[in-house]
């Protein structure tokens, strides 16, 4: 492709495109209507209603792995009761650690971990479902559960972990 010919194509594609005049208002109305923070309230399942397909596919794959590999389950840093889950992470230098996930609307204030020596710990009761979660260190650094690292979140590119409760 000659450069001149390519330049013509690019020039046409760089031209502004038309869109609704009220698009920014619609965006801000939608933002205003939901509380902040936080991220993606989606993969928690409840009777198969209204889940996002991309997240569900990832969750299903992780859940299948979880179901089929008891060794992996035993080695994880998250331990299970019938409905309680212990989340813990070693962060000796942290001043505060919070648990954020689908189960608490990614709200950093709702599930703080408690320091126990070099480790931080919180116990959460969860119903059956598949959940994404991460630890928030000192309010700024997001980390996946080191012993249950999952894929980066599709939308936000941040490390997350997956948890299947059955």
């Amino acid at each position, binding site marked *: 492709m000659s450069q001149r010919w*390519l330049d013509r194509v690019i020039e046409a594609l760089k031209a502004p495109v038309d869109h609704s005049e009220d698009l920014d208002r619609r965006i*801000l109305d939608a933002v205003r209507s939901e509380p902040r923070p936080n*991220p993606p309230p989606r993969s928690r399942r409840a009777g198969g209603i209204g889940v996002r397909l991309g997240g569900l596919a990832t969750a299903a794959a992780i859940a299948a792995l979880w179901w089929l590999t008891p060794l992996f389950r035993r080695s994880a840093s998250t331990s299970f009761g019938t409905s309680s889950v212990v989340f813990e992470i070693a962060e000796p230098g942290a001043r505060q650690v919070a648990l954020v996930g689908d189960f608490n609307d990614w709200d950093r204030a709702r599930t703080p971990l408690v320091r126990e020596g070099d480790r931080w710990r919180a116990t959460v009761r969860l119903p059956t479902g598949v959940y994404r979660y991460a630890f928030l260190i000192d309010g700024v650094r997001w980390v996946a559960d080191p012993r249950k690292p999952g894929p980066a979140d599709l939308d936000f590119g941040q490390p997350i972990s997956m948890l299947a409760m059955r």
Partner: protein
Amino acid sequence: MWRPAPPSPPSSPPAPDGAAPDRELVVRARSGDLDAFAALVGAYQERFIRYARHMLGNREDAEEAVQDAFIRAHRALDQCDPARFGAWSYRILVNRCRTQARRWRWWRQGATEIEHARQLGVPHPSGDAAWREEISHALARLSAGQREAFLLKHVDDMSYEEMSTVTGVSVPALKMRVNRACERLRGTLGSAE
């Protein structure tokens, strides 16, 4: 750092006149300042809608993708490095467009509609309008990956490293996609010139 505020170059992005830099706006938006988030929307909206329109082929889907991207960005502002809001939010948009494209397969629909219009004898546009339609049709014939790479490289003026950050695709793979996109566009549009 690149930020989508046309037509500024990616390496030295001046903030719009009177506008606070992204970093400050993100920090304020995190604390609940909706005006600050509105300023971010205003700074990025035009470029986002252009990318989405070229990726998805119609206004409705493009607006839905852009709206969804901004809403998700707002929800997750705590995860954003304030100095990199542009690349971070663009990544969200790219993923929204991928999801939309998988849902609707617009390029097939668009090609069918164009063919249908021709069969009905709908007058073909002339001049610039015809050229834009031919380009749109040619874009629709690219694979989604090729179209994505071509638009980010040549229309949004990103470096390959920035593209890799936004798409999660390796630099060599992106270079290959851009080259193949150019070859295919030349093949499709060659007769239109």
